[in-house]
């Protein structure tokens, strides 16, 4: 521990060049930022794809808004209309990018890198060079993935699950090199993930500072540590499956090809044996982050800290035995369906424990509604919906009907958007001051939160109803089916919601860049105000119009109805504009040492931690991370480095 610590401090004496500071940096904080920007850029792409194919579902086979000028000879979208093959490519790439290039790099790349050393009191990662390699390999995977868009035949179009045999032969989808590049990129990405997880595991085990015992670690570190173990064990399976897929495609082997004696279900078993732990790789970090943030802003210890940690470990363990619930209707031996339903019910129990403990944390707290807290609360409530809808899918009998319908689309988005992405927003707004030394703007953050929260629910709640109606997922045009004709208004509403949600992220981007560069110019402030107010007004208008005319009424709103909705929209515009005029304050305030009065070690480090993080001596930990409102102490918080008074020591046990 101390050896590597002094070694990294030694680096400070070298004159750092631009390349070694910003490009090939071995500093965990810079690598974290690289992952952070990488994930945010990919998020724009993944979200953009979603908006495009949502257009097709609401107004099938019409020109996508803003693309009508394309000629009818355009390869991808003749006259701006999305064809079925391009549609399949878009849904495939939306999921691939969001799962592998947004949430994974954000949590297992940016958050793990940034938070683990700072929160356990280490000077850097155990293997800084490997760490740097991990980012650049991920970047390479990103480049390979993006290259797939430009090859003959288009990008992969077999769904993000790439079920064989659809994914192994060009004749089935018309996709050639795209699918191969897809598999190659996934394989390369798993290598990056492996380098990262080896690093995180070693760092957490070996480099905790003095006094940082296992049960004094924040739940964020616990979650990221357990996720690193999951990644270490799960990613090789995906990597191997990817290689087999490439072999089948390029060298015409027969792992998955039934015509040559291969086994299509083998792919599904491999994919989901990785895929289910993957779900927890995506959601556990958000759970850890949420637990920390709820505790900080309730000014109260986490309710049942040990139970929370054990729940994380239990979820990670049982998560290996549930993959078959993705395959209830796949043709595997149906008796296995009973076994997998049992394990799936088992994993619901630790998830329930976590939810109730979050409620317990709020109970008798002193709750501060900051922006990170709002996102964390959204995480809890949306995760509850996602968890409960999971019980429907977990029942193999009910799953007969809702398998591969929009019910599962609703479920996965309540878990991965309502869960992971809100956790991500909570984490980004919470640690932004630590990452960049500036506060994010509070009032812009609030407007962004509400637009995201409302937009999210407008999109994904109605999907449950579509699922109950039997609306299959991944269909290009629901209007081809008589039994789905009644559901068109829902699809329109969902697409409008998607538009709001997508545009709402402009506010987030403005907030990030505005705060980062202290953009206090009048034009920028006005632009931020107008964009925020306009988007809020638009949502209000649509809401009222829907309420007046009924969601399922196929005729457009009457003139009077639109007038009324317009007035409400205008009122909202004025309201938000005035709110921001009054409250916006300075954009990009310099962050104080500990803006949230939080206990964990990263807030003990200097505002912008230098290379080596903690100055000459490492902090020594004397107490757990959640000693808020401890009786007998003056403040309602105390950093982990503060020794316990005798009185407090007796009260804390």
């Amino acid at each position, binding site marked *: 521990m101390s050896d590597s610590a002094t070694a990294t401090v030694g680096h400070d004496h070298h004159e750092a060049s631009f390349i070694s500071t910003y490009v090939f940096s071995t500093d965990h904080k810079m690598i974290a930022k690289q992952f952070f920007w990488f994930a945010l850029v990919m998020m724009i792409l993944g979200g953009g794809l979603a908006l495009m194919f949502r257009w097709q579902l609401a107004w099938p086979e019409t020109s996508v808004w803003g693309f009508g000028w394309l000629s009818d000879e355009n390869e991808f979208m003749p006259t701006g209309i999305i064809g079925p093959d391009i549609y399949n490519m878009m849904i495939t790439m939306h999921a691939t990018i969001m799962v592998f290039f947004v949430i994974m790099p954000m949590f297992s790349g940016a958050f793990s890198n940034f938070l683990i050393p700072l929160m356990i009191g280490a000077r850097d990662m155990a293997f800084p060079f490997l760490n740097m390699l991990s980012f650049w390999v991920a970047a390479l995977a990103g480049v390979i993935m993006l290259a797939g868009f430009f090859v003959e035949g288009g990008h992969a179009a077999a769904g993000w699950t790439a079920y064989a045999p659809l994914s192994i032969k060009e004749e089935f989808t018309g996709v050639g090199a795209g699918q191969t590049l897809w598999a190659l990129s996934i394989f390369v990405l798993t290598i990056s993930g492996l380098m990262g997880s080896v690093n995180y595991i070693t760092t957490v085990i070996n480099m905790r500072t003095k006094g940082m015992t296992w049960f004094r670690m924040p739940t964020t570190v616990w979650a990221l540590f357990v996720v690193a173990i999951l990644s270490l064990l799960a990613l090789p399976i995906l990597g191997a499956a990817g290689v087999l897929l490439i072999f089948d495609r390029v060298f015409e082997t027969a792992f998955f090809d039934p015509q040559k004696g291969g086994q*299509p279900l083998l792919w599904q078993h491999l994919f989901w044996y990785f895929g289910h732990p993957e779900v927890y790789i995506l959601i556990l970090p958000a759970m850890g982050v949420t637990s920390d943030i709820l505790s900080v802003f309730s000014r109260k210890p986490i309710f049942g*800290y040990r139970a929370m940690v054990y729940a994380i470990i239990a979820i990670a363990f049982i998560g290996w035995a549930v993959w078959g619930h993705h395959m209830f209707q796949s043709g595997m031996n149906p008796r296995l369906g009973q076994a997998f339903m049992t394990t799936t019910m088992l994993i619901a129990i630790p998830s329930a424990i976590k939810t109730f403990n979050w409620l317990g944390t709020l109970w008798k707290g002193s709750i501060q509604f900051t922006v990170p807290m709002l996102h964390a609360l959204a995480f809890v409530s949306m995760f509850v919906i996602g968890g409960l809808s999971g019980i429907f899918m977990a029942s193999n009998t009910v799953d007969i009907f809702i398998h591969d319908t929009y019910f599962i689309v609703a479920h996965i988005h309540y878990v991965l958007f309502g869960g992971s992405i809100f956790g991500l927003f909570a984490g980004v707004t919470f640690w932004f001051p630590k990452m960049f030394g500036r506060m994010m703007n509070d009032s812009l953050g609030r407007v962004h939160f509400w637009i995201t929260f409302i937009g999210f629910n407008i999109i994904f709640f109605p999907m449950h109803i579509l699922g109950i109606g039997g609306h299959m997922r991944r269909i290009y045009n629901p209007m081809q089916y008589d039994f789905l004709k009644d559901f068109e208004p829902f699809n329109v509403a969902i697409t409008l919601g998607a538009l709001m949600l997508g545009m709402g992220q402009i506010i987030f981007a403005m907030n990030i860049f505005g705060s980062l560069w202290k953009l206090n110019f009048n034009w920028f402030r006005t632009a931020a105000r107008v964009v925020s107010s306009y988007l809020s007004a638009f949502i209000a208008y649509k809401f009222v119009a829907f309420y007046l005319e009924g969601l399922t009424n196929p005729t457009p709103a009457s003139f009077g109805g639109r007038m009324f909705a317009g007035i409400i929209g205008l009122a909202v515009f004025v309201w938000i504009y005035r709110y921001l005029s009054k409250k916006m304050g300075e954009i990009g305030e310099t962050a104080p040492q500990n803006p949230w009065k939080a206990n964990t070690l990263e807030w003990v480090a200097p505002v912008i931690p230098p290379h080596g993080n903690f100055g000459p001596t490492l902090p020594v930990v004397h107490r757990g991370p959640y000693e808020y409102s401890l009786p007998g102490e003056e403040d309602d918080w105390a950093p982990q480095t503060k020794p316990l008074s005798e009185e407090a020591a007796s009260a804390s046990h």
Partner: protein
Amino acid sequence: MMSWLPENISAHGGEIDFLFTFIYYITSVTFFLVAACMVAFLILYRQKPGVQATYTHGNKTIEIIWTVIPAIILIVILFLSQASWAKLKVNPPTNPDVRLEVIGKQFNWIVIYPGPDGKFGTKDDVRLDNQVNIPINKMVLISMRAEDVIHSFFIPNARVKQDIVPGRLTQVWFKPIKTGKYEIPCAELCGTGHSGMKGELIVHSEESYTAFLTKLYAKKSS
């Protein structure tokens, strides 16, 4: 919300719908309880000047209670599901009244009727594209194979869904209890034409089914 379910036309569909509704009520109650607690806590325990949070690390008793109660509920759901699952997916009927074969291929269902001899693989088999004709109130067993990629045979109204995997035989069985025409979409992404790959299920009355078969087989032999 459950009123959005498509009309059920099969004898077993009620079991799926019952479980669906059962879980729906349990989860709704749970959600509203959790949401109500959360909103109440957010209002009651919002930051107020001079009021400090209560310092507590948790409570063993209450944690055990909220672990055990969900566990019991989940076990109930587990057992309720298993009986139906065994009937619907594990044990096919030994003496079905009607047997059919379906071949899934991009982007059609090929339906094979056994012909007058009642056996498949003989000369008098009749193939129809995308049309499953069956009589009402009879147990139907459909054996399915795929020619190219994975498809999924889905009849929303009959509460039937089963993937069809190339190189493997899968089966579905159900007993229709209402005549009429219903759609059979493919529920597993199977390529460019996946959307719109659909067949028609026609549930006949006894007489009209006999008439249909007679006509079908007559056409074949002529």
